[in-house]
């Protein structure tokens, strides 16, 4: 908050240099500027508002009322139902099953993929071997190839390993397909560290793993947080791999959500649907709001050099 006053000072100075007239709070420029931003903010906020409000209403109120209006009578019934009794096909144990599946998928996938990718990045920067750059180039190209072309070979591979349709298989898939972006992230970060650190440790007799564990790892904790944010949201939000590589009992939350909401049988309960949607969005939203600027840094670091 301390920066606010300096900001205003900077504003005043630059406005004098930039704008044709000294600016007033309600100049037409400001009205246009903030007006446009507010209208755009409405577009972005509307779905969250509607989702929230709908999930807190009873069905009769939804049928009569206005989707934008706040509930007259707040009820948490839809949330309870979405979590514990909503049906997908024959199963009526709600989204909780999908939630725990997603947890079981996300936790090991995030840990393994980050470990593998950070070691990759480290090897690519400090221990180049013949062909290492070629592998890296293929890896980056691979991140642009449509997953569809690798789906079936992946199915065969998992079947051969006896992992097809299991949580372990999906963890492997996430590790493989998360590798390009994460490796890039770590490679770029490690190559920005001073080389002398590595040299000094080498002179002191530290080996590959010693340098990684004692020097690189402690020095790159911020990058690990960024990778964590990137992976938790990415894997939690995955739909395609969940559909292709698992079976109904272990469907991740996104797949189960889609099955609940888009099921053809039964009366549509929009409030339960929205509560379920909200529940599925809560984990990434929590990560987003808790991580603040690191989220921006994470996605930008992952994307810009793509």
């Amino acid at each position, binding site marked *: 908050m301390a920066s606010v006053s300096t900001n205003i000072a900077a504003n005043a100075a630059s*406005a004098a*240099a*930039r704008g044709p007239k000294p600016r007033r709070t309600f100049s037409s420029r400001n009205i246009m500027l*903030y007006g446009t*931003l507010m209208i755009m*903010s409405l577009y*972005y906020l509307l*779905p969250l508002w*509607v*989702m929230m409000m709908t999930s807190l209403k009873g069905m009769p109120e939804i049928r009569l009322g*206005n*989707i934008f209006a706040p509930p007259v009578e707040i009820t948490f019934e839809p949330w309870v139902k979405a979590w514990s009794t909503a049906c997908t096909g024959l199963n009526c144990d709600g989204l909780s099953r999908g939630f725990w599946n997603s947890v079981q998928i996300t936790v090991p996938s995030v840990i393994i993929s980050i470990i593998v990718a950070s070691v990759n990045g*480290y*090897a690519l*920067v*400090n*221990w180049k*071997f*013949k062909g290492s750059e070629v*592998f890296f180039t*293929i*890896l980056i*190209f691979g991140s*642009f*190839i*449509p997953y*569809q*072309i*690798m*789906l*079936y*070979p*992946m199915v065969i*591979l998992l079947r051969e390993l006896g992992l097809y349709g299991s949580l372990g298989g999906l963890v492997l898939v996430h590790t493989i397909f998360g590798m390009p972006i994460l490796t890039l992230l770590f490679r770029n970060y490690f190559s920005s560290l001073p080389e002398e650190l590595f040299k000094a440790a*080498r002179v002191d007799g530290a080996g*590959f*793993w010693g340098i990684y564990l004692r020097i690189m790892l402690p020095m790159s904790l911020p990058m690990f947080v960024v990778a964590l944010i990137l992976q938790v949201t990415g894997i*939690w*939000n*995955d*739909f395609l791999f969940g*559909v*292709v590589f698992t079976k109904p009992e272990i469907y991740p939350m996104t797949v189960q*959500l*889609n099955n609940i*909401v*888009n099921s053809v049988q039964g009366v549509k309960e929009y409030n339960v*649907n929205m509560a379920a*949607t909200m529940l*599925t*969005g809560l984990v*990434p*939203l929590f990560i*987003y709001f808790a991580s603040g600027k690191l*989220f921006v840094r994470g*996605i*930008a670091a992952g*994307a*810009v050099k*793509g």
Partner: protein
Amino acid sequence: MRERPFFHPEWGAGWYGGKAMATATRRGRIFRNLNAKIAALPMIFTTLVVFVGGTLWTVFYSFTDSKLLPRERFVGFDQYERLWGSSLWVTSIQNIMFFGAMSLVFTIVMGFVLAALMDQKIRFEDTFRTIMLYPFALSFVVTGLVWQWILNPDLGIQHVVREMGWTTFNFDPMNNPDTVLYGLLIAGLWQGTGFTMVLMLSGLRGIDEDIWKAVKVDGIPTWKAYLFVIIPMMRPVFITVLVLAAAGIIRLYDLVVAQTSGGPGISSQVPAMYVYRYMFSAQNLGQGFAASTMMLLSVLIVLIPWAYLEFGGKKRG
């Protein structure tokens, strides 16, 4: 920037050996940095087996008549002929082209305009950014389902406006084959434009203050400065946005599955859904392989010119 690594394997094991020495050196080369090589095995496996191997495998089997299981009975380009003769595939391609073109234009225009607005040293910048970016954290499934509900003709926006007195108001993109893609577009832009804005904003912030001062001294109007000075300077950012958006569009799948399931009829089908249908439910693998090969081809058409510009240019510079 570091030019070369401290320990380069080629420094020790040189090129000076004769034939007898060559085997010894090669052996030495394999065992040098052995730990690093072991550590890189997952990466080597992923690139060679999954990315390269998997891609070649699928392309190879797209020339067979594989049905339930892959088999090596070659039929030449039959699968491709059937593919392009299928109205489902042709519709999917038309849809993705239309959606893609609209999506690229709107993503870039909205992303840039928002970034330019955000760059006016505004107050509450963090709040605005948080609001614009949060949809990007949500999955396409959540995005699709929320917009499906908001665009619901009986209870959503259309209903609300009609209740307010405008009884002939019509806004039902999801149930009309001609407009369903706009419904998807509204949802897709909601999810992704915040991210484009962030990329563009970082590009704008990277532009030297002196440029702006020079522009002011020359008396160039702001809009002209953006159009003819700033945008050309931001070329790398625009290319990044373009490549990322294009890669995302070709992959478009979850959003459509959640929001429209490809309907009404087949009017919002996309190639990724065609691939899934033939590979995993219609049990006609050959068609699925041919379709996914076409998807790869379309990515290469985008990717190769970009890689050429990006990396070919760097070598010259």
